[in-house]
């Protein structure tokens, strides 16, 4: 099965990477994608295609959107073809437990008719890098630790920890994702922490804008904003057309192979 082979290939690559993967500028940092395949394509149109542009994706590729499988396959294919041009970090949704609640498990069942696809993907999740560091000065991580505490005292804790951590480790900035930001990007704690959110109109209803953060150097960066792809440019969600999608995935592996893994 194509997906199995792809997962195995990427697993081998990931085993070579460190827990904190060093990356060099120029590089573009991206936040949550959550199965919004058509918006991922828009992201690449905004930031440039791989390998022309280097990317760090900070996790949460799957769940919630209708196209988690296509999104993940796209990113894994890019990783397989250009392993040094794209870094994939692990988000909290790259987990067995969470994907059974938020849709990826169901999508695999529906599109493949069994759970094997999900199992192969979970093996990849297990090996995904936790963090990336850009030129020793910008840390990228999915970012659960900076969530707002339910009791509301979280911001103070977050500010202190962030300042201490960046000082101790000589970091200029911490990039994270994980939390929906209406404006697509949000700086906090005197600019020491930035949240980058890359899923526009999250869940197809939140109405937010998305962003990616492009680093020319660790001193020079700029955000690029983008909107969700219009309705008429998107495919119909799976549950309206299961048969077509299954055929698409089966038959598309050759075109996928030739498109994303084309020989030099």
């Amino acid at each position, binding site marked *: 099965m194509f997906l199995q082979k792809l997962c195995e290939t990427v697993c081998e690559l990931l085993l070579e990477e460190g827990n904190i993967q060093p990356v060099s500028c120029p590089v573009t940092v991206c936040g949550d994608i959550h199965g919004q395949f058509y918006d991922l394509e828009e992201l690449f149109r905004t930031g440039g295609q791989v390998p022309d542009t280097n990317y760090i994706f900070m996790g949460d590729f799957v769940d919630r959107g209708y196209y988690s499988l296509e999104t993940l396959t796209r990113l894994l294919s890019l990783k397989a073809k250009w392993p040094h041009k794209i870094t994939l970090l692990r988000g909290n949704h790259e987990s067995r437990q*969470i994907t059974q*609640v938020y*849709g990826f498990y*169901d999508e695999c069942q529906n599109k493949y008719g069994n759970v094997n696809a999900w199992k192969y993907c979970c093996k990849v999740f297990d090996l995904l890098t936790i963090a990336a560091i850009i030129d020793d000065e910008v840390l990228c991580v999915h970012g659960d630790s900076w969530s707002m505490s339910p009791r509301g005292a979280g911001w103070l804790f977050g500010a202190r920890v962030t300042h201490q951590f960046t000082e101790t480790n000589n970091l200029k900035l911490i990039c994270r994702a994980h939390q929906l930001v209406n404006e697509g990007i949000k700086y906090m704690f005197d600019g020491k922490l930035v949240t980058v959110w890359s899923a526009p109109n999250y869940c197809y*209803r939140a109405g937010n804008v998305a962003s990616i953060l492009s680093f020319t150097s660790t001193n020079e960066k700029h955000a690029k904003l983008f909107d969700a792809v219009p309705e008429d440019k998107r495919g119909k969600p799976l549950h309206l057309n299961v048969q077509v999608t299954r055929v698409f995935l089966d038959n598309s592996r050759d075109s996928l192979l030739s498109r994303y893994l084309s020989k030099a």
Partner: protein
Amino acid sequence: MDSVGSDEAVIATNDDASSCKRCAVALGYWRDRYISYFVRSTDRKAPEINRGYFARSVAIKMLVDKFIEVTNGNCQIVNIGAGFDTLYWRLVDEGKSVKGFVELDFPDYDVKLNRNNLHAHTYKLTGVDLRNITDVEAKVKESDLEYSLPTLFLAECVLVYMTIQKSSQLMKWIAEKFKSAFFINYEMVNLGDRFGEVMLSNLRSRGCDLAGAEACQSTETQRKRFLDAGWAGADSYDMIGIWARLPPEEIARVTQIELLDEQELLHQLFSHYAITTAWTDHRWSDVQL
């Protein structure tokens, strides 16, 4: 036809709501022995959707129970645009009897449900076009509803699919005929923002025109529409306010069912739906959560 959308698309919103309710029930958010008879099992919905349906379902049920209690069961219930709602059977299960229970919905929908003008002891299902007030009056007469009895009217995302003119006409007619009426209206609210724009656009692309969106600008417009239609009083709370009024032990119970760390999504949903109650009889102004 009074709207650009299609009736079929509006009827289909029942399928969505029912499958969401079924999903939440299957996970244990509330008890409903009957929903599975109406709707096939479906993919799991997101946790904030389940919590949203829980809040809606439980709040409405609490208000209905309260109304039955204060009237000692000497009342009628009219479920407008009922869809696959299982309220009648749940009340029977709980031994809560009322003098009459009428479900009103599109005649086409009733055919889909394989029943039409089904009459049982206290339960009646009647096909009617709510936009046609003459038809409404005729069908209400046929249903043996008594105008003088305390009557609860329930509408869950129904009025919004009618033009302001038509929904206003319906509300006025009810207020004129039923001097002891109590209305529970669950509906969208605060639609003037980006979220509202996206919702309207999403629904429109599915053939659902929210012809009555104007009344959904705020809890104030939701309240005012009843007062303008001759109702004696009205209250309106968005679902954030409703959630705060639900029993703490129930909140504690359901927050354990599924992990939800994206509180922003729940907050966003909650702030765009509201429960409005209205009454023509001041005795029912105390029917609150």
